[in-house]
Each structure stands twice: as C-alpha cells, then as structure tokens.
C-alpha cells in the first residue's frame, strides 16, 4: 500500500528560475507580439482561474481576481527578471490578489445578502441532466465528498489553504510554493503539514465510503 503512495512525485526536480520558453515569451510580450499575448492566456488563464477559485470559493470573485492578475502581468511584464518561472510569478500575483479580495470581502461583504441564484440553481439544463458518472451511488457519494472537501477548504485558515492548494491542486513543488508565497521552505512544509492535518480532521466525521451501506448477496432462506 505505502509503496504505491510513495511513487507519486518522488525526487521531483523542478525549475525555479525562468527557462528559455518563459524568457522567449516574456521577450515577445515586451515586443508587443499578438501571438505572445495569446500564448500567455492559453497557458495560464485556466490555472490562474482554478487557483483563484480554490482560494476564494467564489466564481465571481475568482473572475475578477483573474482579470486583475492578467492586467498586472501585462503591465509589469517589463519588470519580470526571470528569477522565478513565469508560472510561479503569475501564481504569486494570483495568491496576492486572492488575499486582497478575501480581505475586502471580510471587510465589506459580510453583511450583504446574496441575491444571485446559487451555482446549483444557475446550472443549465444540460448540465443538470447530463450524468456521466458510473453509477448513481458513486455520483452522489462523489458529489457529497467533493462538497465536503470544498466546505473544509473554505473553512481552512487561508495561510494553510494557500499552501495546500498550491501543493495538492496546482501541483507546485515546495520550492515553487516557497517562491510563490515568499516564505522559507521550512514554513512551506509546516503549512502543508498543518493544512492537511486540519483538513483530515474536518473530514474525519464525514462520509466514509467504506462505512457506508454495503449490500451483500445472500441466498434466500
């Protein structure tokens, strides 16, 4: 059991400075090449959106943050000196912007009442009807577990959440996370450890597939 687990990401070596691809793209962006802008969006708009969404758990805010991130990227590309990868740089901006958005929400939006329909209610007919899950039970279980995980992530201390999301969802190495969050490697390890432990504890009382109803075929008596 443990052996298969340890195969994941063992002895990873990751680039922590900009590679030639990054430098070429940055140079093209500085030159105002249209393809460079297109390439930057193609490479990073989805990861930046995913990261913002996982840090904020709010689609609308995540959209605003992503726009702000790319505005800063476009306007500050001249100041990118290649001391980190382009990915790390953009993720760092995203984390900072998400942090600002969270702070703003904490200050201003606590007393607001949501008027928009929930994400579940606003889903299109096709999204509601289409069911590609292997079985109804699996789908329900998976959805419930995902909802619990989302809720647990939302309740997690933002400092730990940043580290866990960057590691387990965005798949960044410890070095990249350290550069993104501008903290030491030891701090990164500590935050990931504490974040995972906090998540595990929150989910411990939740759904457990193994403990759920099991139907065992028996001959009729």
């Amino acid at each position, binding site marked *: *059991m*443990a052996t298969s*687990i340890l195969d994941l990401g063992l002895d990873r070596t990751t680039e922590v400075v900009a590679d030639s691809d990054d430098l070429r793209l940055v140079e093209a962006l500085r030159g105002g090449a249209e393809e460079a*802008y297109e390439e930057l969006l193609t490479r990073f708009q*989805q990861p930046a959106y995913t990261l913002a969404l996982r840090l904020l758990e709010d689609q609308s805010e995540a959209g605003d943050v992503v726009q702000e991130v790319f*505005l800063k990227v476009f306007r500050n590309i001249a100041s990118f000196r290649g001391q980190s990868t382009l990915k790390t740089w953009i993720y760092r901006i995203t984390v900072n912007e998400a942090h600002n958005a969270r702070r703003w929400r904490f200050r201003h939006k606590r007393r607001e009442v949501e008027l928009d329909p929930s994400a579940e209610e606003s889903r299109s007919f096709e999204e509601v009807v289409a069911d590609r899950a292997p079985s109804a039970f699996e789908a329900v279980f998976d959805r419930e577990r995902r909802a619990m995980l989302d809720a647990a992530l939302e309740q997690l201390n933002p400092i730990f959440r940043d580290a866990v999301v960057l590691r387990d969802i965005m798949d960044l190495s410890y070095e990249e996370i350290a550069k993104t969050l501008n903290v030491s490697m030891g701090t990164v*390890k500590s935050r990931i*450890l504490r974040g*995972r*432990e906090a998540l595990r504890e929150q989910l411990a009382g939740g759904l457990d597939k193994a403990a759920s109803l099991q139907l065992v075929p028996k001959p009729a008596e």
Partner: protein
Amino acid sequence: MSCENVQKLISPLLDGNLASRERESVLAHVASCSACAQRLQALENLRSDLRRLASPAIPALLAQKLRVLASHERARQRTRSTWAGRFAPWTDRLELSFNNLMRPFALPFAGGLLSALVVFSLIFVPSFGTASPLGTDPAIELVTTPVDGTVVGRPGETPGTILRGPALACDDTIVELTIDENGNVRDWNMVRGQMTEDVKNMIVYSQFIPATYFGYPVQGKVKVALHNVDRGARS
C-alpha cells in the same frame, strides 16, 4: 522512531521530500503501526481527493474579457513605445483642460471679434455698400487734402480743369486757395501771376471737393495753376 515523529513526516513522505534513510525509517514504522498506517492512508486519500477536485473550466465570458483586456493592453503598450505616444495622455489632458478653460470665453470672444470687424469696416472701408446717387459724399479716409477742383465757369462756358503738380508751366498763374467744407473758395493768395478778371471769375465759379478729417469735410488749402487764363482755355 515515535508515532508523533512519524506522523510529522508523513506529509513530506507523500510529497517525496524525505531523505532515503528517513523514508525507510518511516515506512518501517508504518508497516508495524496500524495508527500511523491509517494516518498515512487518510492523508493519501485526502491528497488524491484534492487532486480529483473538479477544476471548472474558465467561463467563456471571462475568457473573452481576458482577450479584450490583452488586446487593450497590447495597444496601450504599442502606443507607449513611442515618445509621442508616451506623452499623448499628458498632451490630451492639457488640451482638454485648455478647452474647458476657454469654452466659457468662446462665445463672448467670437461676438466681440465680429462686432469689432463690423465697426472697423464701417469706419475704414470707403463707400461701404451703397454709393450716393449724387456722388457728392466725401471720401471716407482718415485725412484728405482738397483735390482737383472742377471749374464750373459761368453759365454758358465750358468747364475746364485746374492743373497741379508737374503739369505746371513757367507762365502759369499760381494761386493758393482756401477751400471751405462745402467745396467753395473762401479765400485766395496769389503765388505767381496777376489777379485778373478772368482769374477771379474762374476762382469764384469753381467747385472743389473739400478736405476731410476722419470722413468729415473740413477747410483746407490747395495750390492751383491756371493756364492761359487770358485766352480762356483751361486744361
């Protein structure tokens, strides 16, 4: 290795961030300790759940907004790459401020300018618009001197002209006349020649265009030469 230490190392173990000796020790402990094995399993499940968390595709509207943003920023960058473009926002702002400042004065200024043009046109342009049917209006000039007069002559006589300037001959009679504002001879002074009856008649029956001062007829003086007065032929 105690369970507490092992549980601290499970997280870096999952990420492959343990030295080989530590990793062996942790694995050996996990193999013999069910509590730590359960912790490892739970964290591994959590990790795989997090990895499997649906990553919703970026909304089409947001992707479109990002492309518009990129297009605007690219245009902005290209504009700012030239000196003119770099200063364009400042010059635009200055121009706008100046326009806003001048806007309240535009109508009064245009009105004043138009009024001034009309007034000065009326004063300085001769016979502005209509001419007198009699042709007796004085010339509208700042200052004029009496000009050549027309010798009307007595009734029945052919009017002649009075010579001035280079046309004068040595034997011409020269008279300095004082012309009043009506164009009539008010006084005279003989400069050369004698005052004869013919000369006197000619002077008395002559009509001059008076001198003007800012368009108004005034008294003035003019020297005239009378040629062959004795013979009555005037040129």
